[in-house]
């Protein structure tokens, strides 16, 4: 397990860059994190673990991937977070935070969502724990992800459209912070990744760390040892830190955070657009959404629009602890572009009978291109399932010539 830094700093990264109105709430949360999460007060962590098991479906398996292992001539294992309730690792965190809010006596939950995965996970957790919940979502995203909006509504959550800016994740986070600043006394903000002000990055990591806690034990049971490398995609970095946390102290285990290379690693400063989401690889230190971290910004410090074929990686920042681990040389920041991710999506679907989230497909894209450098035993985190991505896959596959893809002519133009 990585350390908890009492001051909320990971080297120069992290911190609490938030409006004053939020500071008391953040202090209250820091205290609750300390007591309930770190010290298991009132049996919080036991309750959390039990709910993760019975409601969430943990432990998820670590599967030996026969055909990938054959293809790459080494042992490839898959950590199957796609099997978690809701279809992605997101529930680990959402359930932890909603439960914590309940222990803290909060009466209302707000959350932001981009593609809708964190929103749906939060809505599920909120329904399960009987907490009123409002989700902020950019209007553009709402139009792109209507089935996810519908799922949140089915679970009884309100979905509030955010119309500022491009109407995507970045704006939704800002707007949720505003709601929190307004209703801070009875409301908890369930942030969706290891980002934001302390204690969020540490706390979200701790909720997600169950991934590597299980995987480390499972790989050991299967191989008698540890993996040589662990691969996980990185957007904000929550599945990443979850997959890495319990391996950080195992110095022989290579850790690979696979970011979205998008269509290019170049940046259009003029337009304020980075056609990728590779904050760890190409970003610069700065302050965004409450923390100092690596971010995609222009030379003035304005935040850039990011891009990725996978909505869940499409974010201009990244968790501060990951930034630190990369600077320390402990984590390798690598990236895979849209093409590589799409190919990997089709490959995994056909070879293993697992349709991965496009986010997760990035990790498999890296495996395809670099397996020779990854040692004998490779663990890849399947952060989520791809059912949410089917429309995108049709659209994006049509634009390309992908060997691994089946002929999809009959789906031209969507369902």
């Amino acid at each position, binding site marked *: 397990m990585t350390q908890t830094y009492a001051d909320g700093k990971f080297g120069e990264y992290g911190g*609490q860059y*938030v409006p*004053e109105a939020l500071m008391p709430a953040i202090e209250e949360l820091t205290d609750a994190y300390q007591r309930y999460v770190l010290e298991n007060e009132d049996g919080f962590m036991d309750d959390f673990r039990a709910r993760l098991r019975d409601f969430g479906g943990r432990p998820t398996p670590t599967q030996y991937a026969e055909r990938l292992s054959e293809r790459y001539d080494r042992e490839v294992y898959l950590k199957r977070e796609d099997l978690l309730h809701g279809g992605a690792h997101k529930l680990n965190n959402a359930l932890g935070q909603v439960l914590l809010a309940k222990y803290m006596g909060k009466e209302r939950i707000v959350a932001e969502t981009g593609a809708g995965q964190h929103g749906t996970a939060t809505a599920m957790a909120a329904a399960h724990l009987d907490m009123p919940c409002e989700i902020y979502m950019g209007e553009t995203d709402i139009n792109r992800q209507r089935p996810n909006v519908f799922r949140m509504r089915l679970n009884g959550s309100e979905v509030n459209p955010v119309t500022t800016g491009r109407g995507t994740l970045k704006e939704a986070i800002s707007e949720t912070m505003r709601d929190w*600043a307004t209703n*801070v006394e009875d409301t908890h903000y369930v942030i969706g990744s290891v980002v934001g002000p302390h204690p969020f990055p540490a706390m979200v990591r701790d909720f997600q760390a169950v991934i590597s806690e299980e995987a480390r034990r499972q790989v050991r049971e299967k191989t008698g040892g540890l993996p040589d490398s662990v691969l996980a995609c990185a957007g904000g970095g929550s599945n990443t830190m979850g997959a890495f946390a319990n391996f950080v102290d195992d110095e022989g285990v290579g850790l690979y955070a696979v970011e979205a290379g998008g269509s290019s690693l170049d940046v259009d400063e003029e337009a304020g657009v980075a056609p990728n989401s590779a904050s760890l690889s190409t970003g610069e230190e700065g302050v*965004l959404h409450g923390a100092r971290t690596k971010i995609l910004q222009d030379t003035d*410090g304005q935040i850039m629009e990011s891009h990725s074929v996978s909505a869940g990686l499409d974010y201009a920042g990244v968790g501060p602890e990951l930034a630190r681990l990369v600077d320390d040389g402990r984590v390798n920041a690598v990236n895979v572009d849209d093409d590589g991710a799409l190919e990997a999506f089709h490959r995994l679907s056909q070879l293993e009978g697992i349709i991965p989230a496009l986010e997760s497909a990035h990790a498999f894209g890296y495996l395809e291109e670099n397996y020779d450098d990854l040692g004998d035993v490779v663990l890849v985190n399947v952060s989520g399932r791809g059912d949410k991505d089917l429309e995108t896959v049709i659209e994006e596959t049509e634009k390309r010539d992908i060997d691994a893809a089946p002929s999809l002519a009959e789906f031209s133009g969507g369902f």
Partner: protein
Amino acid sequence: MGDESENTTAANPELAAAFADGPAFVPYLAAGDPDYESSLQYVEALERGGADVIELGLPFSEPIAEGPTIQSAVVRALEGGMTPDRFFEFVEDLAVDVPLVCMTYYNLIYQYGDEPGPRPFVERAAEVGLSGFVVPDLPAEEADPLREACDEFGLDLVFIVAPTTRGERLERIMSQVSGYVYVQARLGVTGAQDDVSGQTEQSLDRLADYDVPKAVGFGIKTGEHAERIVAGGADGIIVGSALVDIVADGAKDGESADAVAERLESKARELKQGALRGYDQRVPQAEGK
């Protein structure tokens, strides 16, 4: 710490002076909203309307502490080409005598110049004659580097005190603040409101023992609001959204900059007059102190 706490409220004589006699009227506009030239005119109109200090927003792409009104102003200003460098030019181009405070988010301050950290930004701010800063996403805990640069160049660092700020935190902020303290009238984000929050009085009470001017902001919209708040003990009023609304309407309706400037001036006058009326009501009390 003892050192810092001594020099805090005395970094820049101008801001202190603005609060010295009578209530200070502190209007806010986003620099460059909706374009450079009009914006110059608008800021100047505020001075004519009675501004004692002007808060000038340097627009940041993620204004997490702002409500819809100021968010829109920020978008307009960014689309109008505002950048940190243009902002400093803007300040130089402004023909106003009252002290100017730069309101922006920390990332822009941090990124400016060749060396990382706030020093280059503060240095340049001092060069163009700014008097201080308000940085809504920079709590006292993270403010040391900026505080130091401000001290080095003789600028003030204004902090926001929220209705939720108490005890240790309040002390920490008050030991860092200089110029004036921005008393947030109610929870939430910026935006004009129809009534004045009861949270204001409690905040002023909590601050009574600190010897630094207290300017109340968030939601002040009319002369009457201003009157009530100053009567309640505020040393100044900060007004943003109510003024930005006028700029927004003008931009939407394609009004001439002159017409908008005139409306800004008269709104400023209304607010200033309100503040003065409020001050009159409490003079005996204030003197008693």
